[in-house]
């Protein structure tokens, strides 16, 4: 469309003020109405930031008799209540732990999640170590990093264990943020 006027071509001076007001009003109103839908959408988009990390809950994971003193670590599923947006489920798998029975009825519980990028580690009996299948991080039986060049920033996450009624192994289950040197609950 060819129009003789251009943005900066001078309009008649009498209409100057009126035209300035028209332009200002058009920009202000146009800007305001255009902003409403994105703002509404942005709130929903940012909603996840409101959701706080959940505190770890104590869960019955195994009976003491399932573990032999000084034996190899064994993997157990952790069942707990889970909230997934609108769904609430009770007693469903939320993760897994390796349990190892040490001397004096002490139990060591390690979260199976590799602190590097969140894969599940395997226990390799032949080498007596934990190994992550994703990026080859390896950890000792106590969860410590074995290889100084390990991609994992911290040892495997140890979880608090309590023996109740002399036979029940309860673990305070918690996941931690991957890729951090410190244990930050998620």
């Amino acid at each position, binding site marked *: *469309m060819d*129009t003789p*006027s*251009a*943005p900066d071509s001078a309009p008649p001076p009498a209409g100057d003020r009126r*035209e300035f007001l*028209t*332009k200002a*009003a*058009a920009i202000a*109103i*146009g800007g*305001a*109405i*255009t902003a*409403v*839908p*994105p703002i*509404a*959408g*942005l*709130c*929903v*988009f*940012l*909603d996840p930031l*409101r959701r706080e990390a959940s505190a770890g809950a104590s869960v019955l994971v195994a009976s003491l008799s399932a573990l032999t003193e000084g034996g190899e670590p064994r993997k157990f599923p952790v069942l707990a209540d889970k*909230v997934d*947006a*609108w*769904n*609430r*489920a009770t007693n469903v798998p939320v993760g897994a732990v390796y349990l190892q029975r040490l001397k004096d009825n002490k139990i060591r519980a390690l979260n199976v999640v590799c602190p590097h990028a969140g894969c599940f580690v395997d226990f390799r009996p032949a080498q007596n170590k934990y190994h992550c299948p994703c990026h080859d991080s390896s950890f000792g039986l106590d969860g410590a990093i074995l290889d100084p060049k390990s991609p994992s920033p911290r040892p495997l996450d140890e979880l608090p264990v309590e023996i109740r009624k002399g036979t029940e192994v309860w673990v305070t289950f918690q996941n931690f943020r991957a890729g951090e040197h410190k244990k930050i609950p998620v």
Partner: protein
Amino acid sequence: MKALDWLDHRTGYKRLLHETLFENVPGGARWRYVWGSTLAFCFMVQVVTGLALWLAYSPSSQTAWESVYYIQHEMWGGWFLRGVHHYTAHAMTVLLVVHLMQVVIDGAYKAPREFNFWSGIVLLLLTLALSLTGYLLPWDQKGFWATKVATNIAAITPVIGPSLQKLVVGGNDYGHHTLTRFFALHAGIIPGLIIAFIVGHIYLFRKHGLTPKLPKRRPDAAFWPDQVLRDAVACLAVLVVVLFLVFRYHGAELGAPADPSEPFSAARPEWYFLFLFELLKYFPGGTEVWGAIVLPGLLMAVLAAMPFIGNWKLGHRFNLAFLWAMMGGVAALTFLAIGADRSNPNHTIAVRTAEQEAHRAVVLARGPDGIPITGAVTLLRNDPLTQGPKIFAKSCASCHRYDGHDGLGGQPKDKASAADLKGFASRAWLTGLFDPAKVDGSLYFGDTAHKRGKMVKYVKEDVASLDDAGKKELAQAIVALSAEARLKAQREQDRQDEALIATGTKALIGTKLSCIDCHRFHEDGEELGTAPDLTGYGSREWIVGIITNPEHQRFYGAKNDRMPAFGEEKQLTPHEIGLVTDWLRGEWYEPAAKKPE
């Protein structure tokens, strides 16, 4: 400025901007030119809010309602976002009609603008298709049943109908694939087509220029800034109306979750499709195709032929008359549909029930158990407050009443012929039973075979002649008997009256009242078979038992009047008996009273 020149050299944006802003407006800016821009604005709003809703929507029959519930009630500003999307859709439909009317009235459909007119009609139809598909997505009762009707109508299309329906529904029945298909249509395919047609529509509009309203009142002017301001103000007005509706109704409505096994007599299409809904009432069975497809098709054909009709001498007048007649017809049919529903008490009850169930679904979803994986529909199916009255109305209300009605608020055809069970086994209910003036009234045994039975005789003679001490014992016995029911509403009272209940129990098995001359009460009294067992009277287990089989010797035995053995005869499932029992006993989930929101 140098940077802008650099940018312009590479993109040519200045020319584009110039063309956009300095389009010629013949005769200067006018309010009647704003409609196209308001529609473009609405479409922009729908795209932005639609994408944001997409972030949280999950199309499947177990998650669609649930995710929409979550948006509406749990997410930050979710109700607002949904409300804007919903009411802008309404606004868009209205504006489309206004735009069409303005184009026809101003003769803007005539040569050489035929293609522009036709692309506008396609955009109108595509937008209506967006409304139709969007209506289903929340998967609530309203959307589900309205869509079921709409797709069944599509099935009567000659030849291709049944296949068309199967393709739209995604199978033989409504479910996951209905939602995935409607969602793909609503959020992908139709908007994509609309964008393509809008581009074409605007291109043609720019090619032929605005159709001036003659005579011109002022010299020609550029689109910027006068017409832009008018357009912006018009869009602002639309937005203000939308926001008013959003705040007035706290966002869009969300009905109870869709349940294919639960009829929904409040099913109506969105108000702008009501004329079609009403039109179908006038076509007898087998001829619906005329009302649903042929007639609307013909009207659209005339609309599309307007540019040609307009070439005749009187063509433009015909077009105008046709359009006004069509709008008048649509308005009249809409008015008739609304009027018919207003004057129909059954529809009013259906709408009220629908609102109650919608509210109840949200209460349960926010309850301590949340929504199970099987979806929110299970919450309502297992809720005594929702199902109890329906089961009562269906199976009990031909004889019994609940507070004088059939449980749902209606009146059954048959006169009441058995006890009113509101508050059964409560202290108040039992006090009435032992009132010589009431025991053979219609609330208790009045219309049953027991009217001349021993119990009525006992109340009318023995109870009536009790001395003051006897009356006191009776009152205590009533408290003790009522405590057997362990009613939720009396739980606190029963706990406080522990001593009174102990005294009442003694009175119950005492010689003065002589209840156990006929009844059994725990270890005391007659063998079962002479009169209903008072052990656990009115408890869940007791009521389930009597509904299952009233002829069991624990209840009425051979003296049972006309009550069917609902459980034994499999007239009701154990699950249904449990639900109606819990409802009669007032056992359902109620949220703890919290601060008002």
